[in-house]
């Protein structure tokens, strides 16, 4: 286990040094993230400005959902996107061979090899929005609430990671699958809004097919101290199951990997 932490530190310091060559990107990312947040607030205000609410959520509570979404977006561009987007290239050029030969778990290597600091504005802005909106909504930071919130955020990260990983790992069969993660990204946009704001059919889709509900709505409920037992349990179960599936899926996919030849 200690070996994994040491490797992780080496990996991330190396990629940080490489990325810092492009410092102007930080400014661009900061402006893009802040602009996106302002845009999302504007869209939310289109609904709330008419005195209507989204699925019975108050304005402040809906802001917590948006904060969780922004946080997840930041983590996606920090870890998921830079790492998992390379699986396709590894499969196409056959350099996955070298990854598999390394004396380290291949799923770990592929998922944690690089670290891009450009998602940090999203993480900071998202966390700040969550804190501010939860305070405005009158949430009380009781120990149990904090524990539930932390657990549900971790569960949501586990689900998000598994969705990305399984899609990216499908490139073992379909070399040009990279766009599938774009489809995923575009569907996850629904996570900017509480899931109860959607009509019944879509709500079922976002709970059972693409579990957007567990990505943002359930953690937001936990942060606001409104989480109910069954939803917490379901969130935990979905998270465990999805990580297990991603693990199994990678082993399964590798059986079909035949390397690239000219």
């Amino acid at each position, binding site marked *: 286990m200690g070996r994994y932490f040491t490797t992780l530190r080496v990996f991330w310091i190396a990629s940080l040094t490489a990325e810092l060559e492009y410092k102007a990107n930080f400014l661009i990312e900061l402006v893009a993230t802040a*602009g996106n947040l302002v845009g999302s607030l504007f869209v939310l205000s289109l609904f709330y400005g008419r005195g209507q609410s989204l699925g019975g959520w108050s304005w402040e509570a809906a802001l917590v959902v948006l904060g969780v979404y922004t946080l997840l977006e930041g983590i996606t561009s920090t870890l998921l996107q830079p790492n998992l987007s390379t699986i396709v290239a590894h499969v196409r050029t056959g350099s996955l061979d070298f990854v598999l030969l390394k004396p380290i778990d291949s799923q770990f290597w592929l998922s944690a090899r690089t670290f891009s600091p450009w998602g940090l504005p999203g993480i900071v802005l998202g966390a700040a929005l969550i804190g501010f909106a939860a305070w405005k909504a009158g949430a009380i930071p009781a120990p149990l609430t904090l524990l539930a919130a932390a657990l549900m955020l971790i569960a949501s990260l586990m689900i998000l990671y598994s969705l990305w990983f399984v899609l990216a790992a499908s490139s073992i069969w379909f070399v040009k699958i990279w766009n599938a993660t774009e489809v995923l990204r575009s569907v996850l*946009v629904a996570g900017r*809004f509480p899931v109860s704001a959607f*009509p019944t059919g879509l709500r079922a889709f976002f709970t059972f097919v693409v579990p957007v509900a567990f990505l943002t709505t359930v953690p937001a409920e936990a942060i606001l101290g409104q989480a109910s037992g069954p939803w917490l349990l379901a969130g935990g179960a979905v998270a465990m199951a999805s990580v297990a599936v991603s693990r199994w899926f990678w082993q399964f996919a590798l059986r079909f990997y035949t390397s690239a030849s000219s």
Partner: protein
Amino acid sequence: MKVAHARRIAAVLLSSQYAYMLEYRAEIVLWALSGVLPFIMLGLWSAVDAGDGLGMSSLQLARYFLAAFVVRQFTIVWVMYTFEEDNLNGRLSPYLLQPLPLVWRYVAAHLSEQATRLPFVAMLVGLFFLLYPAAFWWPSVSAVLLAVLATLAAFALRFLMQFTLTMVCFWSERASALERLLYLPYLYLSGLVAPLALYPEAVRNFAFWTPFPYMIDVPARILAGEPVAVGPSFAAMAAWAAVLLPINLLLWRRGLRHYSAMGA
């Protein structure tokens, strides 16, 4: 003589690019699917108690968002990413040696990609009406023709805009990050997230001073049979093109002078 020659080049470019895009049709289907945003927003808007004050019935909303989806499908521009990749991989130099302005290669690629998308988009539209038969409508022939024209103009304007920004690739290796910034006002002012009719008046007035509403909202409203000031809209698109084109040409010339082929 000259026209015939140009026509032959265009035919060859388009047919070869179309054949190339057909190879990647599965990928293009995925790109088309990633344009689901209008449907997500339709879900949200239709769940809002639409009785009062919205100014649009739920049928009008459904038609608007479907039209916005279709317009978006045929105005997607990705020239910046391809150009950046061609530049970094050293493919740009052989292209530049050809006796054909480079831009036409990318225009042909975009048009062929749209042609590859067409059957799939038609299928999705069919599926939409299957799920929501009440929203079905036949747009008039003149509305369809006008909408096609407006969509083509919107595509041309968006292409011109992104291609102008693409020129930064001559000076920077990571210019495509800039496209993220350009995408922001496009996303929120074009009418993808809501018809501009639902925006507060001040925001709407401001939006129509930018080129973005003409890229989705105007063509989509024409297609959905909503009232649109057609003449002024086309005039505004032409004016924006007249502003962007000289900048584009100037940057292109400056960029070429600065260009020193990437090693491949």
